[in-house]
C-alpha cells in the first residue's frame, strides 16, 4: 500500500471510530474497520505465509497485512492468535443462487430447454441473492463461485457468472466464461457423437467471427445465414476476441486434446472443466498453458470417459506445471470444497497449491483482479479458521466478504438451535432463535 493512501485510510478510520462501538460478537455482521490480529496469515501473494500477522480491513478492502502492522484506532479487533487466516474460498463450478431445491424444477434456473438460446443464455440474470444456499455456504468460508449454466439443447450451455456470497448484488461479472459441454455430455446434446459437438462449437465461433466482420452486410441481409441466433452471435464476440474463456466440460484424454486443438485453431482461450483423465495428457496441457478445474474426489470410472480417474489427478497436473482450480461439484455443499482440497493434498498435491486452487488460481482463471490473495488493495474476502482450513474438523470462525463481516447464521443454524434441546413446555414453533 502506498503510504499516502494509508494515511487517508487512517484518517477515515479515525472519523469512523466515534460511531462504531468496539464490541463484537461472532453472530454480528457489519462493515467498517477491522483488525485481525496475531494469526498465521496465508496471503497467497508474494508475502507468502506470515506468522503472528495482522490484517487490516476497511472500506471493503484489505488495507494492510504484516507482522508490524498497527491496529488503526477505532478498528474492531479480532484475536486470531492460534488461528489461520486465508482468503475466502472460490468454487469454480457451481449453481449457487440459481437453484434452491435441486429436484424442484420451479427453483432451478441454470438451464433452459429453449433451443433459441445458446451462448446468449446468461445465468447471471436468474441469480437470487436471498437463496438459502448462500448463508449455508458462506459461514463455512466459501465466499465466491462461478455460477455456470448447463447444456441442454446443444453443446453450448451459455455464459457463467462470477458471484460473491456477501450482501448486495452478488454478480461480479455476468459473462465470465462461455460454458460448453464436449465429450459424452456434448455428444448427447449434439446428436450422438462427441465429434458433432466439436463441429457445432467450431461453426458457432466461425459464424461469430464472420458476423463481426460483416455485421452491416448481415443487417442488410446481404450475408449468408448463420447457425447461431443474433443474440448468440453477440454473446460470442468477447469469446472470439479472447476476452472471455471457453469453459469446456470434458473428461477423456482424447477429448481434452481435441479441445486443445479446437482452441488453437479458433484462437480462443480455454479452461478445461472436469478433466478426469487430464493427468494422462498433463504435458500437453502444460505446454498449451491451459488450466483445469477438477473435483479432487472424482476417482471412479463413473463412465467410459473417466476410466483413468484418480485421486492423484491434481497432484500430477500440478507437478507437470498445469494450473489447477477446484470445484466441489455441487451447489448445496460448496462448503465441502476444502475437504476435496485436503484429499488432493493427502494424495500428493502441495498444501499451498491446494489452497491456491480455491483462491488465487480461480481469481486468475475467471478474471477477478480484485480477489484471490490477501494483499493491500484487494477485496477483503477473509476467513479466520480455528485450524488448518483443509482439515475436516476445522471450522470458519469469522468470515468477511468484501469487507463485511458475515453474520454467522444460516437457516441450518436456526433449525439446530430450535431443536438443540427437546422437551420444552411449548412446541418448537415458538422457539425463534
Amino acid at each position, binding site marked *: 500500500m502506498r503510504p499516502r493512501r494509508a494515511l487517508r485510510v487512517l484518517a477515515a478510520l479515525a472519523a469512523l471510530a466515534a460511531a462504531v462501538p468496539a464490541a463484537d460478537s461472532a453472530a454480528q455482521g457489519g462493515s467498517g474497520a477491522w483488525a485481525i490480529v496475531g494469526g498465521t496469515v496465508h496471503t497467497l501473494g508474494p508475502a507468502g505465509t506470515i506468522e503472528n500477522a495482522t490484517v487490516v480491513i476497511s472500506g471493503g478492502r484489505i488495507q494492510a497485512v504484516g507482522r508490524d502492522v498497527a491496529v488503526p484506532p477505532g478498528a474492531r479487533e479480532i484475536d486470531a492468535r492460534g488461528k489461520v487466516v486465508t482468503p475466502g474460498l472460490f468454487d469454480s463450478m457451481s449453481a449457487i443462487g440459481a437453484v434452491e*431445491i435441486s429436484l424442484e424444477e420451479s427453483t432451478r434456473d441454470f438451464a433452459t430447454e429453449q433451443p433459441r438460446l445458446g451462448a446468449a443464455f446468461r445465468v447471471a440474470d436468474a441469480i437470487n441473492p436471498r437463496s438459502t444456499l448462500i448463508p449455508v455456504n458462506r459461514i463455512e468460508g466459501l465466499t465466491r463461485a462461478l455460477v455456470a449454466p448447463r447444456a441442454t439443447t446443444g453443446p453450448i450451455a451459455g455464459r457463467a457468472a462470477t458471484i460473491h456470497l456477501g450482501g448486495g448484488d452478488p454478480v461480479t461479472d455476468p459473462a465470465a466464461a462461455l460454458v460448453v459441454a464436449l465429450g459424452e455430455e456434448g455428444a448427447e446434446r449434439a446428436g450422438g457423437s462427441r465429434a458433432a459437438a466439436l463441429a457445432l462449437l467450431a461453426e458457432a465461433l466461425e459464424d461469430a467471427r464472420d458476423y463481426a466482420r460483416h455485421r452491416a452486410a448481415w443487417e442488410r441481409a446481404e450475408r449468408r445465414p448463420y447457425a447461431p441466433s443474433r443474440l448468440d452471435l453477440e454473446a460470442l464476440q468477447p469469446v472470439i476476441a479472447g476476452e472471455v474463456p471457453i469453459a469446456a466440460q470434458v473428461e477423456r484424454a482424447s477429448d481434452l486434446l481435441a479441445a486443445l486443438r479446437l482452441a488453437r485453431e479458433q484462437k480462443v482461450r480455454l479452461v478445461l472443466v472436469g478433466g478426469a483423465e487430464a493427468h494422462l495428457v498433463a504435458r500437453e496441457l502444460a505446454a498449451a498453458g491451459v488450466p483445469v478445474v477438477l473435483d479432487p474426489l472424482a476417482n471412479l470410472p463413473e463412465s467410459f470417459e473417466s476410466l483413468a480417474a484418480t485421486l492423484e489427478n491434481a497432484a500430477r497436473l500440478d507437478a507437470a506445471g498445469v494450473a489447477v482450480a477446484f470445484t466441489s461439484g455441487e451447489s448445496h455443499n460448496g462448503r465441502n470444497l476444502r475437504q476435496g482440497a485436503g484429499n488432493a493434498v493427502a494424495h500428493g498435491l502441495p498444501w499451498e497449491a491446494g489452497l491456491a486452487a480455491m483462491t488465487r488460481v480461480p481469481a486468475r482463471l475467471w478474471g477477478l483482479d480484485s480477489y484471490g490473495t490477501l494483499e493491500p488493495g484487494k477485496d477483503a474476502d477473509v476467513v479466520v479458521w480455528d485450524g488448518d482450513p483443509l482439515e475436516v474438523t476445522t471450522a470458519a470462525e469469522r468470515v468477511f466478504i468484501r469487507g463485511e463481516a458475515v453474520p454467522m447464521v444460516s437457516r441450518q443454524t436456526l433449525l439446530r438451535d430450535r431443536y438443540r434441546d427437546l422437551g420444552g413446555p411449548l412446541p418448537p414453533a415458538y422457539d425463534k432463535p
Partner: protein
Amino acid sequence: MTSGPRGLAWALAALLASGCATAGAPPAADRPAAPGAEKNPYPSTYRPLPSGTTLIRGATVLTGTGTQLDGADVLIQDGRIAAVEEGLAAPEGAEVIDAAGRWVTPGLIDVHSHLGVYPSPSISATSDGNEATSPVASRVWAEHSVWPQDPGFPRALAGGVTALHALPGSANLIGGRGVTLKNVPSRTVQGMKFPGAPYTLKMACGENPKRVYGRRNQAPSTRMGNVAGYRQAFLDAAEYKRNRDRAERGGESGGRGGGGRAGGREGGRDLGMETLVGVLDGEILVQMHCYRAEEMAVILDMAREMGFGVTAFHHAVEAYKIADLLAKEDVCGAMWADWWGFKLEAFDGVRENIALVDAAGGCAIVHSDSERGIQRLNQEAAKAMAAGNRAGLYVTRAEAIRWVTANPAKAIGIAGETGTLEPGKAADVVIWSGDPFSVYAHADRVYVDGAPVYDRTDAALQPVTDFELGILPAGEEE
C-alpha cells in the same frame, strides 16, 4: 446426490436406495433341500483369505466400545481379536507391526451402499438397483443384482471399509431384500456374503415412491398413498402367515406357503409374501428410507399396528427433531454428515444431526449412499463429530468411531461378530497412518477376519477388478 463437474450434478436424479441370510453359517458344498432351505437358498460361500498371527504394536486404538487406548497392542490370532492391551508379548511366528504414531480401529461398516447394484461405470447396462415396475417389490433380492467386479469395492476397501450393506433403491414402497457383504474380492456374490448376517428389507417413505408412481398416474401418488401401500402389504402378509401357520399345524410340508392372498396361488409360494412374513416373524430387519420427522413417527406407529419393528431409518435428515423418540424406540438413524437441499424432504438438514441423535442416547450411524462417500466414512464421521463439539455436545473420537463401526453393525444384525475390537470378535481391523478423523489419514492396512486384504504400500495387496484390468493401455493404469 452429487457427482462431479462432468454431470454438473446439481440437477441430480434422486435415486436413493436400501437384506441377508437367516440361517447360521451355511453348509459347505452340497445343499440338500433341507427344511428351511427356502430361507437361505443362496448361502454364503465366503471363506477368509489366508491369515497368520499378527501383533500390532504401540498404536492409538479406538476399540469401537467407546474407549481410546494409547500405546496399546492388538493381537490377531486365528482370524479373531485375541487381545487388546498394553505390552502384549508376540507369540511364536507372529508378524509384528510397529504402529507407533498410527491408529487402529475396527473395520468400517457402511450400512447404506449401492455398490454392486448401481456400480461404476454408471450406465444403463449396470443400473440394477430399482425394480421400479410395481411399488411393492418385496419379491426381489439385491444380491441377485450385485456385480462383484464393481470398481467401487476395492476403492471402499482402501478407505477401510470391511463390510457393507448393499440395498435396492428407494423407488418403491418396499424395495426388496438387502444383502450384507464382506468387502473382499470374489468371483461370486455368494463369496462375499457375510455368513450368518440376517436378511434385511428396504422400504422407502416420502418423495421417491410417490414421484416414481405418481407421474405414471399410479398409486402411490401421495404420502398417504405411501402409508396405505405399506399397510395393505403387511395386512396381506399377515393373512399369508396365518394360512401358512394353519397349514403347518395341519401337517403339510414344513415352511410351505399356504397361499391365501387374494388372487394368490393356493398352496404355492409367494416370494414377496415370504419376505414380508419374515419381517413379521422378526427374522428380517426393516431398513426404512425416511427423511422427515413426522413421517418417521407415522412409520413407527404403522409398524406397531402391523406387528413388526423398524431397525433403522436411513437418511433421516430430520432425525434431530425426534431424537428423543428414536432413542426411546431404540431405532437407529443412519445419516449423512451434511447432505441437504437436493429435494424438499432434505431441506432441513443440519450439520449436528448425527451428534444430536447420539446425544439423545440413540443409535447414530454415518452412512454413505455413495460410491464416493463410502471411501471416506472416517472423514464424514469427523465432520459430524466436529459439528457436534462446536454445538457443545462433547463427542470424543472414541464415541464417534462407533458411528461407522459398532452402530452400523448393530443395525444390520452383525454386532455379535464385528464392529468392535473385543476379544473373540472377527479381526476386521484398520491400521491408519494417523488420526482417522483427519483428512490426511490413510488406511495403511486393512484386515478382514485376520487376513490382510489391503496394504497401501504393497501392490500385491491391492486388488483390481476384472473391469479395470487392461482397460487402459499399459503404463496408464491407476
